[in-house]
């Protein structure tokens, strides 16, 4: 029983020392900082660090020069059980890059379903308890706010490094920041997309949207995009459907839009599944050529749809960046260069569209999935 007390106290002590390292945040302030309970990447990344890591990730891997007496132990806690192959790809990209870098590793996966917050919490506790086993813990929160305390707890542990996947907004009130956040910024993607759409389609257009589930992700993918095109291009939004990121939802929403809001010539979809449902609904009534529809993420399915001429544009993530960057971070850490890492890493995003040639699209896809492989996943 005493041992427990001591552990409790020591965790408390550790967390207070851990906090010191992050005292310097934010590095600089961006508009709206007071209204946010999180920092945006620009506020916490020292100049040049993000770009430097992006460059390393985009280039050929430089092999690890140091020596390992045993493989690094990596625990992955993420909600991969029922989502698209996003997590599987990250995993593959990381492991392939580690192999490319010549780093020996072992992985243990703790997977759950997206809505099983409680189970993920259980996993986090158990990994924490087995902290002596692991060198790196990669945590993909089921939902940022809900898992905030677990991020805090894991980050407070000294015996391993903590990397967070799929989020890029460091929460202000974490006592302990993880070592790096790895993600794509939907907000950045929304701006890239906004610029492209305004340039391509001009001003004053009417759009309808298949949004996801209200929340931070949808606010960025759909909300930021909507705000941008309405403000910069004077666009109108006829209707917003919440398709819950489900294919069915996209189909339903699009069927609805096609008949109830025929004035909308553009349909925005907040993820691949909804985009596929949307395209299918359009094809079923032969309207896929009239409607300019967009997806999100530039996954293989979306690119196929673009090749078929059904989908028209999509902000495309260089999908394997997150996994590869994680491998690079591990390498940097092993080489005692972790000081060079940004606090938030963002993967690269460009727009893939129907005016690109087949080769251009192929090259883009090749680059995006250079580790996990274009097409169906083999694991």
């Amino acid at each position, binding site marked *: 029983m005493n041992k427990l007390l001591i552990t409790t106290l020591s965790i408390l002590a550790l967390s207070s020392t851990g906090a010191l390292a992050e005292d310097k945040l934010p590095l600089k302030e961006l508009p709206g900082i007071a209204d946010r309970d999180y920092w945006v990447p620009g506020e916490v990344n020292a100049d040049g660090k993000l770009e430097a890591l992006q460059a390393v990730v985009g280039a050929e891997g430089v092999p690890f020069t140091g020596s390992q007496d045993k493989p690094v132990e990596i625990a992955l806690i993420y909600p991969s059980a029922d989502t698209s192959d996003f997590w599987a790809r990250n995993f593959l990209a990381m492991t392939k890059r580690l192999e490319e870098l010549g780093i020996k590793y072992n992985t243990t996966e703790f997977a759950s379903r997206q809505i099983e917050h409680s189970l993920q919490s259980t996993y986090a506790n158990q990994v924490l308890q087995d902290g002596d086993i692991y060198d790196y813990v990669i945590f993909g929160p089921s939902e940022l706010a809900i*898992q905030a305390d677990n991020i805090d707890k894991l980050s407070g542990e000294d015996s391993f490094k903590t990397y967070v996947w799929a989020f890029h907004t460091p929460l202000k009130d974490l006592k302990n920041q993880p070592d790096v956040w790895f993600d794509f910024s939907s907000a950045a993607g929304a701006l890239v997309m906004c610029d492209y759409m305004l340039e391509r389609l001009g001003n004053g257009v009417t759009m309808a949207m298949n949004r996801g589930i209200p929340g931070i992700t949808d606010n960025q993918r759909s909300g930021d995009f909507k705000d941008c095109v309405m403000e910069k291009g004077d666009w109108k939004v006829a209707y917003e459907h919440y398709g819950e990121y489900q294919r069915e939802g996209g189909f339903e929403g699009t069927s609805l839009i096609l008949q109830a809001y025929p004035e909308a010539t553009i349909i925005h979809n907040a993820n691949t599944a909804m985009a596929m449902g949307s395209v299918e609904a359009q094809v079923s009534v032969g309207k896929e050529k009239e409607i300019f529809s967009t997806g999100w993420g530039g996954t293989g399915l979306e690119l196929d749809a673009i090749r078929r001429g059904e989908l028209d544009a999509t902000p495309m993530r260089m999908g394997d960046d997150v996994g590869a960057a994680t491998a690079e971070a591990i390498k940097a850490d092993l080489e005692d260069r972790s000081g060079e890492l940004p606090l938030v890493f963002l993967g690269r995003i460009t727009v893939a569209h129907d005016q690109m040639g087949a080769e251009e699209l192929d090259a883009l896809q090749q680059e995006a999935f250079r580790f996990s492989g274009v097409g169906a996943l083999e694991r």
Partner: protein
Amino acid sequence: MTTTTHHPGNPVKFSERIEPFLAIIGPMVMILAILLFMGVAEPARYFRLSNLNLILLDAALYMPMAMAMTFVITQRGIDLSIGSVAALTSILMAFLIKQFGFSAPVAITIALVLGALCGLINGLVITKFKVPDLIGTLAMDLVYRGLALVIAKGLVLARFPEILTDIGRGQIPGFIPVPVVIGLLTMALGYWLLKRTFFGRYTVAIGSNPEAAEMTGIAVDRYKIYAYVLMGAAAALAGVMLTGKLNAIQATSAPYFNLHVIAAVVVGGTSLFGGRASMLGSLAGVLLLSMMINALVTLRIEFFWQSVASGVVIVSSVALYTWLQKKDRDGAKGLIAGLTTPESLKLLRLSGGLIAALALLLLIGSLLAGNPVASG
């Protein structure tokens, strides 16, 4: 004639003496199996104080609900709405605290009362509308979940006063976590309710023989409603504990509470056909499920085995109990003997036929198979 506690005649049979404990044999055997297995496979990590703490912490969340569900199921009822009740009440509590500045104890109390109210509605729907429990609570599950979504949308409410996180994950130094204390207290309360109060006695009577209960003048509907009210309050308490544990809550939280809790209770020997209640069994059931998940995680086994294991454990412990009972009733007939009846032989032949047909189809399929077209 004086009363004596000495009984003449034959001594009490062994099977009669273990009868009250028969219900928890199932989960106990399974727990023992896990302990033995882990004792060989990973003793150092599994058997340590911090891990016991984790197991208990995980189980604590389900204890209040398993307690109340024991009553509901014993009365031949079922409640599928508990996850939504937990989500709805804790969302409301969170709003009261975060948006309206209510003090946490007040908000928590309100949540519990709201939970009881949800339970009351369930009970009224079932007893007054004469809706079967399964359908009634399924409908209410959808309604409560819908309301929670209406209120909170996709919002996550996080960062609550300390009292709440204490309830959810606080640790009494040198002792077990606060939620475990709460959970065990509710279990003890349940045991007391079951054995010492009208409510408990009538719960068993109603489940055992509803007509008899009615005839002896028991207000069957009222006691059914009591069980659902208790269930609602317990679900709300679990919601509060979950909110505290995660220090955050969302309308979609607590998705699989109902199935997990029902499984724990049934594994613990409480019968879905009513009348047979075992509070100790429910506690054992909750612990068993938590220990199993913990063991699989400790062994670093791939996650889908959790699903398989819980499915297998649920079915096999219920099957074990049914078999024990049947054996008791029909005399000890071996499993093999049971398989050789003409009826079973027919079934065996049918399953053999199905498997053979499937094998044949797969064979034909592989003969006809072209190259796999795996690329997209």
